[in-house]
């Protein structure tokens, strides 16, 4: 059984978690019992993906981050990891319902797109480079969850502004809480991104080669998130504007990463 089969089965669990969202929206009061089911499905998907990543890592004899497909699987996995940590610590039951569709989308596009192309590494094998790449992907996971939280914030703000709260109104947390969690996730993602960049600078200096498309992407993303963080903390951006900017920043991060990876190919 190859690692891709594990990813496909994990996808089924995430699809089931997404389908559960529909049910939870219909019966808001059933949130408690359905929330547990949602967490079980997400944990199962998480463990299956972890198995897939480990199998791929063992066959490559290195951290499975050699092509776009592996990076995408890793980002989805990191997103679920942060969801499980943040969702549990802040007791946000509906976070999983918003995370599941995003993970499903990342996994599905990764599995369907012709991006799982074996690549012969151009640079000398270095555990430092692998560590830097893994930290960078974890940063993407935290920023992906910041995107999810911003989407929840946006939806809740719209419902409050419309004066006609929809079915998700009672399931979503308060806009102020989502705002606080969003900023904390941005700080976490930004710190990881910065650590990844510093690690990358040291590693590539040791190896003696610079992957320029990646360097440009990393700097551009770092600047975008630095500006966003400044706006949300010093500039007092809250609510809709902050949510839209956070979602846009992540879309930029992901599309720029895809673009950079295609260029690198």
């Amino acid at each position, binding site marked *: 059984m190859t690692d891709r089969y594990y990813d496909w089965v994990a996808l089924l669990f995430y699809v089931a978690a997404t389908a559960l969202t529909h049910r939870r929206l219909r*019966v*808001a*009061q*059933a949130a*408690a*019992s359905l929330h547990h089911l949602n967490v079980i499905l997400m944990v199962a998907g998480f463990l299956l993906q972890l198995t897939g990543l480990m199998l791929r890592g063992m066959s490559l004899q290195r951290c499975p981050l050699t092509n776009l497909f592996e990076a995408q699987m890793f980002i989805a996995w990191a997103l679920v990891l942060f969801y499980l940590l943040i969702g549990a610590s802040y007791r946000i039951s509906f976070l999983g319902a918003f995370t599941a569709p995003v993970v499903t989308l990342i996994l599905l596009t990764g599995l369907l797109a012709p991006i799982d192309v074996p690549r012969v590494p151009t640079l000398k094998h270095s555990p430092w480079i692998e560590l830097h790449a893994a930290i960078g992907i974890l940063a993407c996971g935290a920023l992906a969850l910041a995107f999810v939280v911003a989407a929840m914030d946006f939806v*809740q703000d719209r419902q*409050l*502004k419309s*004066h*006609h*709260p929809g079915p998700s*109104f*009672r399931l*979503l*947390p*308060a*806009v*102020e*809480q989502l705002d*606080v969690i969003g900023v904390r996730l941005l700080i976490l993602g930004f710190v990881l991104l910065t650590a990844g960049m510093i690690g990358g600078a040291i590693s590539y200096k040791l190896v003696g080669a610079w992957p320029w498309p990646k360097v440009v992407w990393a700097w551009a993303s770092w600047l975008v998130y630095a500006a966003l963080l400044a706006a949300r903390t010093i500039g*007092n*951006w*809250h*609510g*809709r*504007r902050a949510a839209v900017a956070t979602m846009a920043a992540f879309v930029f991060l992901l599309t720029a990463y895809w673009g950079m990876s295609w260029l690198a190919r």
Partner: protein
Amino acid sequence: MNLVLVGLNHCSAPVAVRERVAFPRAKLGEATCELLGTAKLAEAAIVSTCNRVEIYALAADAEQAAPALRRYLHAYHKLTEPLDEYLYERRNRDCIAHLMNVVCGLDSMVLGETEILGQVKDAYAAAQLAGATGAALNRLFQKAFAAAKHIRSTTAITRGSTSVANVAVELAEKIFRDLAHSTVMVIGTGAMSEATAKALRSRGAGTLLVCGRDRERSGALAAQLGGRAIHYDDWPVEFPKVDIVISATASPHPIVTRDKLVPLMKARHNRPLFLIDIGVPRDIETGCDELENVYLYNMDNMQQIAKDNLAVREREITICHELIAERVTRLAEWLEERYQ
């Protein structure tokens, strides 16, 4: 053996009658024991709330038990006028269905209200403590509580608030992370603003400021709700610290305008602000709602939400009755098997 119910509620009797036949909570156990002795019942439990008084009993002969329960109500409350026109009776299957409807809030004045479940649980506990319940009533009440739990978790019968004051609280809870850290300002005193402020305070709202032209009145309201009274002219000074504003003045012009609000929002670092406009004519300019992080609701908006919530509950009634019917059948079969 038969299950018998005799009682009255807000539909069958006016409040003047209900208040005369209500049992004091502390005397429920004692009254149930007395009832067992006088009416020759195997088991009994009395449910008494502001909207209903119901006696549930297990008796060998239902034909004799029902009039005995009526007589007991008369005698216990020393009534002189007849009660019969206000009382209803249910037996066996209908009695089970009735209790299940009651605990699920389907028979309440406010459809789907949840307070009744706690009240019936208290009544059952009192009867149990008095030794007035046995296998039949224990099973009846426990199955009814289980039905209520199931229905509350699988249907939308308790979804949303159906009163304007509670709608305001529900909205505030979806804006602010923690109501305990929020400051509420009431501008202008009146029944509706008082009810809304009270509802917010009961849900843990932190500081309360009451501001009105009539110092005595605002001082009294502040004292009643544990808040602080401020002078009407001082509200713009306090405003940057405030998270929730309940405005209900008789002012002919808006007192909070968009132009006034823009610098105030800057002063409060653009944190969310919940404006509740109860005034007629309106106290808060509608343009304020266009500002980011400002959530403005007037009476019409909140009444509409309360109405929508009630409509959602009403749509669930059929599903609830279907769920109850299954449980009624199972329990009725168990009772028949055991007692016949």
